């Protein structure tokens, strides 16, 4: 009888541990996928695309100038960068978070975004402004 009670208690502990592990364990796959890519749609959410696909919300605008900014504050710095329409890398600059980066390019199809180079798990809130704000 005593053995059966012990077994029940063990089962309860195992089940509870599994439930807790499921709750606090690795973040949902979407969040992880988002974090290693770049660009956040203006509407927010978690739709990131790797640079080489050319997907971006931060299409170049207005002949000269585009501004990007990341406002997350878990890390001290963020890479803000510049890509061709097809997604190939053209440049980047590492700045503290919440600092605006004003880009100058003469190619109207260029795109700009933010990349968290500290970890693949971080949600980066990257804003962009069509036409630079300076």
């Amino acid at each position, binding site marked *: 009888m005593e053995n059966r009670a012990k077994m029940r208690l063990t089962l309860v502990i195992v089940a509870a541990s599994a439930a807790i592990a499921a709750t606090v364990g690795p973040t949902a796959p979407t969040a992880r996928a988002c974090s290693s890519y770049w660009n956040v749609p203006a509407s927010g959410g978690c739709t990131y695309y*790797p640079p080489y696909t050319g997907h971006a919300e931060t299409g170049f605008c207005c002949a000269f*100038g585009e501004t990007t900014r990341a406002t997350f504050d878990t890390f001290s710095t963020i890479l803000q960068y510049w890509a061709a329409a097809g997604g190939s*890398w053209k*440049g980047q600059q*590492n700045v503290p978070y919440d*600092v605006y980066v004003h880009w*100058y*390019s003469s190619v109207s199809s260029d795109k700009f975004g933010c990349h968290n*180079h500290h970890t693949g798990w971080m949600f980066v809130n990257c804003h962009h402004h069509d036409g630079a704000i300076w």
Partner: protein
Amino acid sequence: MKEVLVHRVGRTRALAAGVGVLLLAAAAIAAIVALPRGAGATAPSSVRGLADAGLPPVLDRAVASAAERAGLDRAEVRQVTAHAAGHERAGIYDSAGLYVGRNGRGSELVSFFSPASFSSFVEARNLVRINGGIFASAASQPDATGATGHVQLMGVADPAVGRVEIERADRTAVSVELARLPRGRFSYFTYVSDDPGTFPHLVRAFGSSGEIVAQQDVSEDVKPPSD
């Protein structure tokens, strides 16, 4: 018999001394190879007013506008620019460095610029807190193959910093010139490279007694973003 023993002891001592010398020499060679080589050269910067910077007109207006937005008088803003022989053009502007000015409250404000971008103005005192004494913004652009081909480093140092040194990819080290505004508290430095062997890896700041007071690893900051 005694003579033979003395001879043997003498030979053993000589052998031990020889081995010791060889070990010392090997250790010295290993230390020379393993440690960053001395900062023999200095990466210089030049300081000039915005009017003398030769910026393309549209960029000149943009920087002036950003400076005014930050409460700076355009006429007082200085451009601290990197100097490097053979530096390749990697954007529409052929240089990199910092725009520096002082606002009405006496705070020094900084904007980092690369051949393709410039940042909004930030207070120098907030920047140096990030790494405990220095902050360097790294910018990079690709070569023809898509790998990192051009790197620019633009930095700010706390008033307590007496010297800044950059350890490079090939483990050599170079001191950077520290530039200040007239009556300025903070100092500013630049470094550029188009050669992967001399790309910056680590920025070290030393106090007046030569002790390391802060350092920043920039090796990951200059790599292309990975997926």
